[in-house]
C-alpha cells in the first residue's frame, strides 16, 4: 500500500459518512456504524501508543470517559454547545493525559500498566461516588448536537472524525515523531543512547493519543446523550485492546480491521445476549492469538508483502 493510499483513506471515510447518511440506513445499522467510530478512535489511538510507541497504558478508556463527562460539564454546567465541547475536550484531555504521563511515563515495564490501571479505577470510583455531580448510575442527559437531527448527522460527523484520525495517524507515523516512537518501542536503551529524548517523545505520544481519546469520548457523549459511570469499565478497555490486537497491533489499519471484526460479531450475534457476544469475541481473540500472532492484518501483509510494505511504518 502506497503513501497515496494512506492519503486516500481519510477521504474515503468522509465520503462513506456522507454517502451512508443519504441512503437511509436502518437505525440499528446506523447505531452500529456510529459507535464503531468511537471504538475506531479509541483502538486506533491506543494502537499508536502501544503498537507504535510501546507504551501499554490502560488509562485510555478513562481518558475517553473524561472527554465524555467533560462534554457533559461544558454543555450542562457551562451552557456551551456540544460542538464547542468537541473542540475543547481533546485539548483538555490531552492536558490531563500529559499530567498523568508526567507520573506514569517515568517508569518502565509493568509499572506503566499498573499506574494507568489505577488511574482508570480511581476515576471510575469517583464517577460512581460523586453522584451529586454525575447523577450516579441514573446517568446524565445531554441535548443533541442539533435539535431534531437524526442519525444522518452523526454518520457524516463520524466519517469526518474517522478521516481526521487517519490524517493524524499518517502525520505521526510518517513524521519524525513516529520514527522516534518506534525506536523507543523496539529498544528504549539504544534510542536513549543515540540521543533520543525518551521522556519528551513518550509525553508527546501520550498527549496526542489522549486528545484522540478525549475526542472519542466527546463524540460518544454527544451521540448517545446519556452518560453513566459504567462507560468506564476495564471490560470496555479490554474490548478496545482486543480490537487493536485482533486486527494487528503496530499496523496502521490493524485497529480498523479489529473494529470491523468485533462489531460485525456483535451485530450478527446480538439476538443471543451480551454474555454470548463476549464468549464469541473471546474465542475469536484466542484463535487470532494462536494462528495469527500479530493479528489478522499481519497475515494479510505476509500474503502480499510488496503491496503492504508500508502498513507497519
Amino acid at each position, binding site marked *: 500500500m502506497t503513501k497515496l493510499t494512506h492519503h486516500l483513506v481519510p477521504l474515503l471515510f468522509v465520503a462513506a459518512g456522507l454517502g451512508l447518511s443519504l441512503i437511509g440506513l436502518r437505525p440499528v445499522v446506523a447505531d452500529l456504524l456510529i459507535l464503531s467510530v468511537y471504538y475506531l478512535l479509541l483502538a486506533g489511538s491506543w494502537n499508536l501508543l502501544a503498537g507504535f510507541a510501546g507504551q501499554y497504558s490502560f488509562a485510555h478508556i478513562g481518558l475517553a470517559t473524561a472527554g465524555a463527562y467533560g462534554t457533559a460539564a461544558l454543555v450542562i454546567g457551562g451552557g456551551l454547545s456540544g460542538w464547542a465541547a468537541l473542540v475543547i475536550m481533546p485539548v483538555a484531555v490531552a492536558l490531563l493525559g500529559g499530567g498523568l504521563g508526567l507520573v506514569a511515563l517515568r517508569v518502565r515495564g509493568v509499572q506503566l500498566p499498573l499506574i494507568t490501571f489505577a488511574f482508570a479505577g480511581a476515576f471510575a470510583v469517583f464517577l460512581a461516588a460523586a453522584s451529586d455531580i454525575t447523577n450516579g448510575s441514573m446517568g446524565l442527559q445531554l441535548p443533541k448536537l442539533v435539535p431534531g437531527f437524526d442519525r444522518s448527522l452523526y454518520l457524516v460527523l463520524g466519517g469526518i472524525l474517522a478521516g481526521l484520525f487517519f490524517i493524524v495517524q499518517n502525520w505521526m507515523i510518517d513524521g519524525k515523531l513516529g520514527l*522516534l516512537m*518506534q*525506536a523507543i518501542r523496539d*529498544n528504549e*536503551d539504544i534510542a536513549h543512547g*543515540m*540521543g*533520543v529524548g525518551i521522556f519528551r517523545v513518550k509525553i508527546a505520544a501520550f498527549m496526542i493519543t489522549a486528545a484522540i481519546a478525549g475526542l472519542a469520548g466527546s463524540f460518544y457523549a454527544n451521540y448517545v446523550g446519556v452518560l453513566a459511570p459504567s462507560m468506564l469499565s476495564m471490560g470496555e478497555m479490554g474490548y478496545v485492546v482486543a480490537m487493536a490486537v485482533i486486527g494487528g497491533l503496530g499496523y496502521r489499519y490493524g485497529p480498523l480491521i479489529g473494529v470491523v471484526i468485533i462489531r460485525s460479531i456483535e451485530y450478527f450475534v446480538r439476538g443471543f445476549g451480551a454474555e454470548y457476544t463476549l464468549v464469541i469475541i473471546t474465542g475469536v481473540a484466542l484463535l487470532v492469538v494462536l494462528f495469527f500472532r500479530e493479528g489478522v492484518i499481519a497475515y494479510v501483509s505476509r500474503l502480499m508483502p510488496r503491496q503492504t510494505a508500508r502498513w507497519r*511504518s
Partner: protein
Amino acid sequence: MTRIVLETQGLRKAFGGNQVIDGIDFRLAAGELVAIVGPNGAGKTSFLNLIAGQFRPNAGTIQLAGADVTQLAPNVPARRGLFRSFQNGGAFGRLSAIQNVALAGMVRGLGRREAESEAGKALARVGLSPVADWPADHLSGGQRKLIDFARLLLAKPEVALLDEPTAGVNPAIMEVMRAIIAEMRDKGVGFAVISHDLPWVFGLCQRVVVLASGRVLAAGSPDEVSADPAVREAYLA
C-alpha cells in the same frame, strides 16, 4: 597541542559488592584511535556504558570535548557529539535499515526526509542499499553491525565508542569498517574501540589500553603492550 575530546578521571562503578570499574583514568585525543582490550569480565563494556551515560558512576568525572557529562542521561552526551555502538548491534528490529540509519541524522536535527536521504547515501557506502527497505530483524548479524557504521557516518560525532564491531563479521565487512574508521579518524574523530580481534584493531590504533578487573593493567603502543609480561599473563597467554 592535540585537543583532548574525551577524558575520564578516577572513574569507579560497583554493582552491589562487585567493583566493575575501579578508578580508570583515560584520555582520548581528536583523531586518535585507542584500542580497549582485555579478558572477558575486565569491565570494557561497562567502561563504555559509563562514558555514554548508560551507567551512572559512583565516583570520578567524565569530560566530553571539555564539558562535564558525568551523571548525565545518555541522550545528552549523544547530542553533544558522542556516538556509541553496541556489542550485539544497535538496530531497531521492526524499523527498516534506512529508518534505523535516518534516526542518527534526526537526533542531529535533520528532518525525516533529509535524514532518510542522507541515510540512503550512508547505506550505499556500507553496501546495504539492496536491503535498505528491509526490517532490521530480517538482516544478518553482520548487516546489522553495518547499520551501526552507516549511523556513524550520519552522526558525525567528535567521539565514537565502538563495542566489538568485528565480532562475528566476515573479512569483507571488516574491511568496510576499517576504511570508514580510518577516514573518520583522519578527519579528527576520536575512537575508543573494544575488540578481541587484535591484528585488526592493532592495525588501526595508535594506542592500546588493557583492562583487567576494572583497572588499567597496561597502556602503550601495540608492540609495548604485546610485550608486557603482565598483559601476556592476564590476556594474551
